[in-house]
Every structure is written in C-alpha cells, then in structure tokens.
C-alpha cells in the first residue's frame, strides 16, 4: 500500500502526466484538481513499488496494510537511479537499513 507525502511531492513540476501516474501498472494514480497525484482505489494496489522507485523526489513510501500488519511495522522507500536502485527500510522503531543494489549491467548492447 503506497502513501504519497504531499509535503515532499512537487507534482513533477508542471508535467502533464506525473511520473507515478505514468508508471503504475494498475492505472491507479490520477490527479486531483490541483494537479496533485492521487491513488484511487487504494485497495487495488499490488505493492509492486514501480511508483516508489520512479518518484524523482522520493515522496512515495510502501507499507503493509493494517489488516496484515497490526503493529504498524516497517516502511520502505526506493529510488531507481542510473544502474542502481537505492532502498531504505525503516522498522517500527525508526531504525533504518539501506541497500544499494546493482540493477542494470554496464556496457549494454
């Protein structure tokens, strides 16, 4: 289940189609009248993190729904940049664990 932090989101400037809107495989992100991205039926989210990884300002995070994780649990952010993907998992005590993972080979042909 994704959450958009509107204090961080910059609406991708004045881009007509926002990055998260462009990428969501379920066509679940649209815009409100002010051009802010909105997730429509939140319960339809697959938690694939496509929007999380593509957000240029890391405004989107993923956590498990309350039905599944009653103690709030952990949240996750990710950023796909160049040939690496950067991940941060924050546990419920606020402790962070970071990962920098190779995602694309160099010398693509």
């Amino acid at each position, binding site marked *: 289940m994704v959450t*958009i932090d509107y204090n961080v989101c910059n609406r991708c400037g004045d881009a007509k189609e926002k990055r998260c809107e462009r990428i969501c495989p379920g066509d679940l992100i649209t815009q409100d009248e002010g051009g802010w991205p909105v997730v429509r039926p*939140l*319960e339809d989210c697959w938690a*694939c993190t*496509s929007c999380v990884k593509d957000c240029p300002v890391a405004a989107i995070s993923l956590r*498990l729904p309350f039905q599944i994780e009653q103690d709030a649990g*952990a949240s996750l952010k990710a950023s796909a940049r160049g040939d690496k993907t950067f991940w941060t998992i924050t546990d419920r005590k606020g402790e962070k664990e970071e990962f920098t993972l190779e995602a694309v080979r160099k010398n693509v042909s």
Partner: protein
Amino acid sequence: MKVGQLAPERYRMTTKVVNIDTDILIIGGGAAGCYAAVEAKTLEPGVRCLIMEKAHIDRSGCLAMGLNSINAYLHPGQDPGSYLNYVKKEFMDVLREDLVLSIAEGLNDVVRKVEKWGLPIEKTNDGNYKPRGKRGVRVHGERLKPILAEAVRRSKVNVLNRVAATNLIVSDGRVTGAFGLGVRDGQLYVVKARGVIVAAGGASGLYRPANSGNGRHLIWYCPWNVGTGYALGIRAGAEMTSFENRFVALRVKDVQAPTGTLALGAGAKQINARGEPYLDKYYADHPIRNSSTYFRLLTTMLENAAGRGPCYLDLSHLGRGTKEERQFKEDLLHMSPTAALLWAGRKGSGGRLEISGSEPYIVGGHGEAGYWIDVRRRTSLPGLYAAGDVAGGAPKKYASGSWVEGRIAARTALEEMGSVETPDIDADIVEREKERVTAPLKRDTGIRPQDMEERLQKLMDEYAGGLSTRYELNEERLLIARDLLPGLRSHADLLTAGGYHELVSALEVLDRIDVARVVVEHLLYRKETRWPCSQSRLDYPERDDDRWLRFVNSMMDTKTGAIKIIERGLNGNDRL
C-alpha cells in the same frame, strides 16, 4: 482545497475511432511480447511491429516487481531432454513434449541475450552463471522490465501504451487485427495487422483472494492480468487446453511472496507448528513425491488438516544482521518488496515466515492452461499466434521460456505474413464494438464492475474449488457454478462505469467471466484427480492413467456461446 481529494473523472461519451495499420501486432508487452517484438525487428528491420499494452511497458505484467531468479536455464550437464524429463514428472505426464522441448532448446540463448540487454546475472569463477537450485540462475532483476522495454525502444518497435485489447478482429476465419480501448483517452483503437501475437498473460481475480480490504491485491499473480489474453481467443472460437490445470501457489502468507525461490535461495526448510520438517515423512511412499510443485503444497495442506499448522519456512539459520540475512533481504527487494517489509516487522519471530496456498490462478507459464498451439506457436485461428502465459501445454516455462516462445511466435508470424493483405474492416463491426465497449459509460445506474467481480470471485470460491473449500471439487458444486456463470455474464448489459478507469474494469470482469466459464467446463470434464490442489476431485480422488493421459480442450461456439469439449491425445494430434 484539500490535496489528494479526487474529483469525479471527466470523460467523453462519444468515442473517437483511431485506425492503425501494421504488419505484426503484439497484444501485451510483458516478457513474451517484448521479446517477440525485438525478435521481429531484428530479423526484419523493415517490418512494422506494434505492441498494444494496457499499462506502460516499463512496468507491466508479471515482471513489474522484478525477479531474483530465472527459473528455467540449462546449466552444464543438462540438456533439453533432461529438462523435459523434469517437467514431465512435475506435471504427471500430461504435457506437450514438443512444446517443452522447443522451449528448452532456446532457454540459454534468450537468457544470454537479456543479459546483453542489461540484466545483471551473477557468475561463478569459471564464467558460468551461478546456479540457484538445479535449473535456476541468480539474477539482480529489480529492473528487468524496464530493461526489456529499453530493448523494445532500441529496436524501434511502435508501442501503444495504455490501450487495453477488447476483441480480436476476424475476417473470413483469419485474425486480421484487434480492437483496443484507450485507458486514458477512451478512444477505440482499430488495429489492422498481417499477423497477431497474443501475449497478454494469464488470469488472476477469478477466485476470492486470500486477503480482503486494502490487502485484496496482495496476491501472487499480477492483479492486472485478468485473462483478457484468453478471453480474446475464447470469444473468437480458438481451441483452448488444460484450463482444469489451475495454478495454486504455495506462498509466504499475506504478502504472497514466492516460497520455492526462497527455499532454494536461502536454504529454508518447510516446518510445521511443532518445528518438525514435514516433507521428508511424506516422501517415502507418496505417489506424487516426484512433483515438488504439487507435493510441497499438498503436504502443507495435510499438516494443517492434521492439526499441525500453521506451517512455516524456517529461516532461523540466517540469524539477524549476518551476511546471509542481508543477502536474503536483497533477494526479496529484487522480487517481493512486501516480503522484505514483513521480514523487517518480524524481528522477534524466530526467523520463521508463515506459508499458505494462494487462491487459484489460470496461467500457462507455471501451469499449462492456455491456447492449444503447434510447435511454431500457431493457435487454431489462422493469423493468431500465442506466447508466454497465454500459451498452453508447456508448463514451467517461466520468464525465460516465455522469451523463447515470443521468439518462436515472432519468427512464425513473419514467415506466414508473406503476401497476406489485410482486408478493410467492416464499418458495422467497428460500430458494434464501439457500442459494446462504451455502453457502461452511458448507464447512470446499474451494476458496478467491482460488485460483479466480487460476485464472480464468491461463486468460484464456493463452487469451483477456491480457498474456502481447500481447492476441493465435486460434480454437484461445479454444476452450480456452471448454472450461475451464464446468468452473471448476461448482466453485462447492466454494467455501469463512472470513467475510463472503471470502464476498463467493466470489460475486464467480462473477460474474467468468459475465462471462468471455460475453467468450470474443464474441471467438470476431467473425472480423476491428476494435480492435487490444482485439480482435486473429491468424487474421483484417484489418478487414472488408463483413461486420462489425455488433454481436455475446449472451444466456444461463437454464435451460441456454448462451450464444446474436445479430447486430445498426448501427441496433440488425434481428435476424438
């Protein structure tokens, strides 16, 4: 104004028609579709090749989350024959050997190709791929889908993103194109083609999912693979095979992350609530011990039924904060980020993850439900080829096998295209499809797609062997499902949608019902139990090789909508 509040969607009631002419049309830009497109442009750079994709090819279909393992590859010492023997044992001898062999022969080529396109693959010191289990390859595949999409772009393939296929166009018995609905613009795309490859994935959402509410889409299979790829062919009268071979996945409970790949990658054992590893005690004399896919799930169900549940994957040997645990988490991030969250929230759980079966899916990539095809991936409809999850008879193809099928389908489509000229499409047919597709927008009241979807999932769950009946089937229940489904389908003319997004959902639920009808007919027809949990008949509990070493196929009458069953032998040729 408050941020994040959704205003009603603005949409047009009148639909513009967009006509497109191409040589090869590929429906669905997932694993098989992307590979097919690149192959077509590589062989014939001048060919006009178009992908019609419901989402955006950068993150669509099964691979949207990524992969940490390519599950089908021939390591040194293995060959197509050994691969076939393995799949044959796993699927209790009912499969198309010719199709499986043709996949096995291409596996290593396509994996090397995708590595060249940018997929990071771990290697051993001697330069071979690092094995993960017997037939797997460990990959860093978080970005696999964008990598495939980039190869498509480099090959100058045309891509129609955000267009959902609604029906095939058939002229004089030949498939000559397809209709698509613009998910964002509500336009009707009429694509004429000299060859059509269907690669639109399998079907989820036929059965009630394991979670409800905000968790309802935390399912194993991509929730936007709704069976459209099958439904297009079913409605056009294509022959389909093995829809009774449902796929039930043994998964990490709640988040639906794979267990097989965790077991292989992290050396996890399946244990019951008492901490006992239980697979071994069933091995000695169990008739399906050679089929790990079914055996691992069935034994978990048996342990639960005996009061020794819940069952777990035991990962306690990883500890916390070790190198091994770190690698385990990296693997999860490449493929199942929700499982990484679950793991992070379970620090005091003693390193166990609870496991359970998923709701059933219809897929040709793990299972073998799909179009009945020949070895060149031709369906029973001239001009239509199938690859990947929609293609039947060849289970355990996974991503790499889907690439091989995409490659074969592209080659065949190019060869057969020859001098085919596509006829103009009858204006009446276009008008009728426009009416059908947009009708739910014009109704102010009626049945919402979500309600129809939940009705379908409830009846399939209760009468066609869903989670609530432990996947078990019997004739009386199935007959109720058979009676209910046509009535549900007939309510298509009551569906209402408040915008394009919901309109797509309305068309999707009809696709799901068409697939479900075929599933129920197949389940009724196979009067034995061949694949436990996938196809467990309480009224025919034994496997019967004398009678049922055969394929159950079907075809829908395009005029009456009646489904006819056709039996075929294992060599695929004889018709009864």
